[in-house]
C-alpha cells in the first residue's frame, strides 16, 4: 500500500519539462508519419507507418478504458475486429466502392456499439476482475463465431477484397508530361499514397478526439471512477452509466480504427483483427507508452510496431556478430525476437511502471 504512495506527490497542475519532452516526442513521431511516404521509401516502411497510425488510435482508445477509467477489458480487439469485418463484408457484398465501405463500416461500428453497451450494462457492475474475465469470454465467443460463420467471414482464412479505386495502387493520381505516374521526390503518386493519407488523417482525427476527451470534464470523472468509484457515486456521478458510456465510446473508436485498417490492408481475418495476440500487443503498447497519459499511445504504438518489423533484422545482425560464441547465437536467433521483447517488457513494467510517457511526465521541474 505504502509503496504506491511514495511517488505520490506529483504536482498535477503544473506543466513540467517532462511533459514537454513527451509532447515533443509525439510531435516528432506525428511528423514522421505525416511525411512517411517521402521520408522512408519502400513498401515495408509504408506498411509500418500505416500500422502505427491505426494502432495509435487503437491503443489510445484502450488507454481511455484501462488507464483513465481503470476498466480492464480483453474485448478491445473484438470491437476493432467488428469494424474491420463490417468494412470487409461491406466491400465484398455491397460493392467495392464507397457505398460498400461506408455502409459496411457503419454496420460494423453499430454492432460494436450495441454489443459494448450490452456487455457494459450487464457486467460493469461486477468486480473488475470478473469483468475482465467476462470480456475475455465474450471475445473468445466472437472469435469462434468468426470461424463458424465462414460463409460470411471467410472463417480462419479471412476475406480479401478490393477498395475504392482511389486507394488502389494501380490508380495513378497525377500524371507527368509523358502520361506516366508522376513521381514526387522519387515517390510514385499512386492510390497507395491516397490510401495512406486516408488512414493517417482518420487516425489523427480520432486521436485528437480522444485527446480532447481526456481533458474534458468527463475525463476527470473517469479518473475519479478509477480512483474511488464509491466516492464518485456519492458525489452524484452515475458510475455505471459513465462506465458504460466510456466502454461504448472506446468500442466505437476501436471499430473505426478497424475500418481504417481494413481499408488499408484489403484483407481482414481473425489474425489481423480479432485474435488474442493483438490484444496482447495492445496491452504491451499501452504499458510501454504509459497508461493514463494518452500521449503514451503514440510512443508505445510506434516503438512496438517498429520492433515487430525491425527487431528481427537487428537480431540477425547481432547473431551474426556472435556466431562463434556458444548458445548466444541461439538466443539471438532472429526467430526468437519475441523472447527479447518479453524480457524488455518485463523490465519496463518493473522499472518504469508508468511507461515511457508516464516516467518522463512525472519528472518535475526543479521546484
Amino acid at each position, binding site marked *: 500500500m505504502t509503496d504506491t*504512495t511514495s*511517488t*505520490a506527490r506529483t504536482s498535477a497542475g503544473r506543466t513540467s519539462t517532462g511533459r514537454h519532452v513527451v509532447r515533443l516526442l509525439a510531435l516528432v513521431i506525428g511528423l514522421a508519419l505525416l511525411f512517411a511516404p517521402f521520408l522512408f521509401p519502400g513498401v515495408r516502411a509504408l506498411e509500418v507507418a500505416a500500422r502505427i497510425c491505426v494502432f495509435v488510435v487503437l491503443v489510445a482508445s484502450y488507454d481511455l478504458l484501462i488507464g483513465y477509467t481503470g476498466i480492464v477489458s480483453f474485448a478491445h480487439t473484438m470491437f476493432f475486429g467488428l469494424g474491420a469485418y463490417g468494412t470487409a463484408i461491406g466491400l465484398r457484398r455491397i460493392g467495392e466502392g464507397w457505398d460498400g465501405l461506408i455502409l459496411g463500416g457503419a454496420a460494423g461500428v453499430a454492432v460494436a456499439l450495441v454489443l459494448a453497451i450490452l456487455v457494459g450494462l450487464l457486467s460493469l457492475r461486477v468486480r473488475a476482475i470478473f469483468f475482465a474475465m467476462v470480456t475475455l469470454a465474450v471475445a473468445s465467443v466472437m472469435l469462434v463465431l468468426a470461424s463458424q460463420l465462414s460463409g460470411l467471414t471467410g472463417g480462419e482464412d479471412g476475406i480479401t477484397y478490393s477498395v475504392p479505386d482511389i486507394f488502389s495502387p494501380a490508380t495513378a493520381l497525377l500524371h507527368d508530361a509523358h502520361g506516366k505516374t508522376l513521381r514526387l521526390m522519387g515517390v510514385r503518386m499512386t492510390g497507395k499514397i491516397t490510401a495512406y493519407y486516408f488512414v493517417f488523417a482518420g487516425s489523427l482525427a480520432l486521436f485528437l478526439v480522444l485527446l480532447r476527451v481526456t481533458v474534458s470534464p468527463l475525463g476527470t470523472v473517469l479518473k475519479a471512477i478509477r480512483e474511488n468509484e464509491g466516492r464518485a457515486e456519492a458525489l452524484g456521478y452515475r458510475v455505471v452509466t459513465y462506465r458504460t458510456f466510456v466502454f461504448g465510446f472506446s468500442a466505437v473508436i476501436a471499430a473505426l480504427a478497424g475500418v481504417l485498417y481494413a481499408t488499408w490492408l484489403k484483407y481482414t481475418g481473425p489474425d489481423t483483427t480479432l485474435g488474442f495476440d493483438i490484444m496482447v500487443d495492445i496491452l504491451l503498447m499501452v504499458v510501454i507508452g504509459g497508461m493514463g497519459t494518452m500521449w503514451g499511445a503514440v510512443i508505445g504504438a510506434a516503438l512496438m510496431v517498429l520492433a515487430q518489423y525491425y527487431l528481427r533484422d537487428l537480431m540477425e545482425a547481432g547473431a551474426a556478430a556472435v556466431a562463434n560464441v556458444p548458445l548466444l547465437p541461439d538466443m539471438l536467433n532472429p526467430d526468437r525476437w519475441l523472447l527479447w521483447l518479453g524480457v524488455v517488457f518485463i523490465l519496463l513494467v518493473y522499472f518504469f511502471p508508468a511507461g515511457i510517457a508516464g516516467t518522463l511526465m512525472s519528472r518535475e521541474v526543479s521546484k
Partner: protein
Amino acid sequence: MSALVLDGVQTRIGRYSVLHDVSFTVPEGGVFVLLGRNGAGKTTTLRSIMGLWQPEAGSVKFGATELRGMHTSAIARLGIAFVPEDMGIFRGLTVAENMVLATESGRFDQKRLDWIYDLFPALKKFWHSAAGGLSGGQKQMLAVARAIIEPRKLILIDEPTKGLAPAIVDAMAEAFREISERTTILLVEQNFEFARSLGRDMAVIEDGRIVHRGSMDAFAEDRELQTRLLSLSV
C-alpha cells in the same frame, strides 16, 4: 530503565524528508504520550519505530536491541504491538480470525479474552462476523483488542480514541492504566483529556522535530506552553 530510546531519527518518505531529528526516551512502564498537530510527524515516528519506514539516520533502541534496520516482523516478535492510525483491520476476516492472528500460538487465553469481552462487549457480539461490517468505533476497538490480547513489552498506539463513544473512551482509559503496569505504552493522541489522564511522560513533535519533552503533569499545568505548541486554549 528506559524501554525505548530514539536518538536523532531521520526519516524520508519518497523524496520528502518528514522526520528531521526525533529524539526522546520512553521510560519503562506507564504511558508515554506523543503530542503534535496534524502532519507533525507522529504517525511517521511510530512507523519508523516499527520498521514500516526505514529511518535513514539515527537510532531506535529497544532495551539493548537496535531496531533500525530490522524487519518489521522481527520487531513485532520482540513483543512490540502496533495499533495503526487506519486501524489495519482485515476486513475480509471475521473478528475472531483477526484476533487469532494477533496471538502467538493460535489459541486464546480465556481469562484475557473474557477481560477483552468485558472491555469491548461489541466484539463478543460480532465475534464471528466479518470485521469489514463493524462500525467505525467497533473497528477501533478491535484494533486495540488485537494489541492487548497477549502480554507485550511495548505497545505503540496511534490515536485509539477517535470515533469512540465517551463511555468506551473511559473504559479504554481504565484498561490502559491497568495494562501499563506491566507494559510500556507509547500513545499518540489528539484527545488531550484522555492523554492527560493517562500520561506520565510526554513529548511534543512539530514539523519532524521534538520541540518539548517533560512530564505530563508539568505540561498540563503550563497553559502557555499548551497554547504555543498545540493551540490548546482555543
